């Protein structure tokens, strides 16, 4: 992305037919810390990497409960994400009050997308700088949607957004065909493993990640740290046993490709300690 004469205003087209401000907004999403989502037929799991300003501060809240049957994970400008979550909660509660029935996720997502589109077509506004992974349940089953600042939305079986999300995406691409039939616990495990991919070698602890689940008979809720740490422990020990066996051959090829992918993604910082660019 280079500065050019068509990027000052969101209402200015470039000769190539692009709206640069919108694309810059999507860059903001790529700079935020990772969030992933995956779904089976009956459950959806959201996970995110916790980001703290400094060692002294608490981490930012990136997963929001919107209703009993809908939750959202954000990546990008957290303030924008908070405002949009409030909008979603409002819509859900109004629908619930009028119809005594949960708002279908698909409709909420379209309303969100229309709201984002407005900001791409007014000269006095700017696009929301946040990508939203909306997880929800309705009559037709479990759904995972991604809403981007451009006002587009897509439905996914599994997706990852934010910095170093390519590693998670690669992991998910390998496994996604099995997700439909997965049990809830397997889905949570897969989510944590996908998060581990984005950490690139940093030790996986429950304080670094947040996991939330919604499913049939299970309202949306964030798993507490103890539960998450237990799940991490179960497969950390399993991984240690597996390591010498077959993992290296399959893994190194993938990891090399993944590392190249992430290096191109955000300018090559593989140094875990710094990361000042992440929002």
């Amino acid at each position, binding site marked *: 992305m280079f500065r050019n004469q068509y990027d000052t205003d969101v209402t200015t087209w470039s000769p190539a037919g692009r709206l640069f401000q919108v694309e810059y907004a999507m860059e903001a999403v790529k700079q935020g810390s990772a969030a992933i989502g995956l779904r089976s037929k009956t459950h959806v799991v959201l996970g995110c990497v916790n980001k703290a300003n400094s060692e002294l501060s608490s981490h930012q809240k990136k997963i929001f409960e919107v209703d009993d049957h809908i939750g959202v994970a954000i990546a990008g400008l957290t303030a924008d994400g908070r405002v949009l979550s409030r909008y979603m909660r409002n819509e859900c509660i109004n629908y619930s*009050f009028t*119809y005594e*029935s949960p708002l279908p996720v698909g*409709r909420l997502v379209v309303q969100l997308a229309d709201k984002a589109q407005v900001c791409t077509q007014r000269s006095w506004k700017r696009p929301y700088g946040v990508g939203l992974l909306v997880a929800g349940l309705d*009559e037709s089953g479990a759904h995972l949607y991604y809403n981007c600042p451009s006002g587009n939305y897509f439905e996914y079986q599994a997706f990852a957004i934010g910095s170093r999300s390519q590693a998670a995406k690669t992991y998910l691409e390998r496994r996604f065909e099995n997700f439909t039939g997965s049990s809830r616990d397997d889905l949570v495990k897969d989510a944590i493993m996908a998060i581990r991919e984005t950490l690139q070698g940093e030790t996986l602890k429950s304080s670094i990640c947040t996991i939330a689940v919604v499913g049939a008979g299970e309202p949306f809720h964030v798993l507490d740290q103890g539960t998450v740490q237990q799940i991490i422990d179960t497969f950390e020990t399993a991984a240690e046993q597996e390591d010498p066996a077959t993992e290296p051959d399959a893994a190194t090829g993938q990891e090399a490709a993944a590392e190249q992918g992430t290096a191109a993604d955000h300018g090559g910082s593989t140094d875990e300690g710094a990361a000042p660019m992440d929002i």
Partner: protein
Amino acid sequence: MNVSFSLNYLQKPFFIIFNVTHFSFNQTFTLPPFFHLFLVRFMALKLPQNSLLGSQSDSQRTLYPYVTGTSVVALKYKDRILMAADMGGKIDGPVHMRYKSVERMKPIGKHSLLGASGEISDFQEILRYLNELILYDNMWDDGNSLGPKEVHNYLTRVMYNRRNKFNPLWNSLVLGGVKNGNKYLGTVSMIGVNFKDNHVATGFGNHLAQPILRQEWHENLSFEDGVKLLEKCMRVLLYCDRSAVNKLQIAKITEEGVTIHQPYSLKTYWEFSTFENPAQGAIGSW
């Protein structure tokens, strides 16, 4: 607004004639006894035009129903709903007239049936609201649809809000439907009272039909038994309700959709000996 009135002390009720020059029409209102006394004090108060109870704004809100339908009776049977209502629309006034082909039950969307008693024009207004609701619901085109529970609660909100503005939709509604195998039957009154039950009725039906239903309704009625039970209720209503008309429709809601049958009449029996010879037990009286 120029108001003049004259009082005719002709038995009860009192007649008061308003000459409203602002709108230039004459309208005769029938008021309950002694109401004119209240009105005199009320007029002397010189209330602002927009006051909630001001006379000018009275013409903007519902005060009385004019063309009304009588009871609607409905019950659940097996996996479906049955509803019955007659086809009468009665005008109250010096001349008692009736419309005899008023359809007081209408399907709503794919899953529900709405029956109404009370003011027919308000029922038509409600149908307009619901048409718009269903239209927007269909326009989403996403596999989700509003079921009977959602429509029932939407209606409750509408009725309650209108009541709060002192401008009610003068109806008692019965909403029944089946969605995803679940049957639903509920009612909303003109003041927003709503509840669900296995069998409901409006108006006179509450007093005449519900006792029969409480005795004889059970969980696994067949279609024929359900219809017989409804006919029994409607027959009692026909005998005892002055507003009833002997032309009724039965409607059935199943998972597949709504069927409103052709109207028909009930057989009645009037050969009671007291009808044939009313003076039998009271010689010399009239």
